[in-house]
């Protein structure tokens, strides 16, 4: 039921997620941040069961920190996505994490931003725009419509806001609040809507 979607330009990436924690027919919380910071230039937006989301995010964050302390430098964005994929792919046949994610970040060395789409099987694909869950059905066309080569950051933010508007209009589940995270070479900026 979680909505997670994102779009990526040449040197910026934006991911957004809703902030509702649902429990049966009740909203337990409506200001949850489902986009976890992996480090200063990477985020992971997770859709799925709350417990798995928390556990998996925490596990990946700790694993990346351990890598940093062990080796003296941070893992780069592509390798982070591949590592996360491997963890999901090993888990699916042992004890699956029921989480679908988008990993977005800015790679300082390559000087470009990337967005990765992962699902709970361990499917990984680098994409320019993507969404998970029911949001995929609503926002895919909005993202496709807005996206063009050499898009600017402002156009990207406009696109994400249009996706949110679309979900709030047409999606059956009421999701009053969304968290938007914008990643550029200057770091991560957080915005909330609603």
């Amino acid at each position: 039921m979680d909505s997670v979607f994102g779009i990526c330009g040449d040197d910026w990436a934006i991911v957004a997620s809703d902030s509702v924690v649902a429990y049966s027919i009740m909203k337990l919380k409506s200001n949850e941040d489902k986009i976890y910071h992996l480090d200063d230039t990477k985020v992971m937006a997770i859709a799925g069961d709350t417990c798995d989301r928390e556990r998996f995010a925490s596990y990946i964050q700790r694993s990346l920190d351990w890598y940093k302390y062990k080796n003296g430098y941070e893992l780069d964005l592509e390798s982070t996505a591949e590592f996360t994929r491997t963890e999901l792919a090993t888990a699916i046949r042992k004890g699956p994490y029921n989480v679908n994610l988008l990993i977005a970040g800015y790679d300082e060395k390559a000087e470009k931003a990337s967005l990765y789409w992962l699902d709970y099987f361990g499917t990984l694909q680098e994409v320019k725009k993507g969404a998970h869950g029911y949001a995929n059905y609503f926002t895919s066309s909005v993202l496709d419509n807005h996206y063009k080569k050499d898009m600017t950051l402002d156009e990207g933010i406009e696109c994400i806001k249009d996706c949110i508007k679309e979900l709030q209009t047409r999606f059956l589940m009421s999701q009053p609040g969304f968290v938007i995270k914008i990643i550029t070479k200057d770091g991560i900026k957080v915005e909330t809507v609603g």
Partner: protein
Amino acid sequence: MSIMDYNGSAMVAMKGKNCVAIAADTRLSQQLCTISQNMQKVFKVNDRCLFGLAGLATDVATYSKELKMKTNMYKLTENRDIKASTFTDLVATSLYEKRFGPYFVVPVVAGLDDKGDGEYEPVIASYDYIGCKEQSYFACAGTSQSFLYGVCESFYKEDMNPDELFEAVSQSLLAAMDRDSLAGWGATVYVLTPTEIIVKNIKTRQD
């Protein structure tokens, strides 16, 4: 929907004279919803061998890496590149290792065996997901498999040169992809000759 149809794919390989070709679509989907139009499904083993994996995308990624690890180990222990025909056996045995918890992938191998004196034996193999190898003059895999068999049989002729082979493989793939709703959104064709690997991206119907 079956687990083999979850991510959608079309894959075909054909023999020519001293050359082989392998082609795959580039669609990644979640059942009927397209996620990406540039998923890589064909991987290189060495200059004489390519393999493609159709089936569940996560297992395509995991299994292609497992094969890469095994062929790297082979190269380190034997100090030479693995032959295409040996690689076909490696694929069969490694899939059967997981007989009771398989990778949901259907591989297609295309390669050239060096027979010496400038002669090369083309090798084409296809499998089921537990490693039953079938070697023939063409191989089909993926959600479009049944569409591909018919059109491949018609387009195939013996001893094609690289250009004719490219045409035969592309047209077969296009015809089958256009019929299959789960495959499409672009295709990549690899023609393997003794001197080079020619890679061409075909612009197809974007649906």
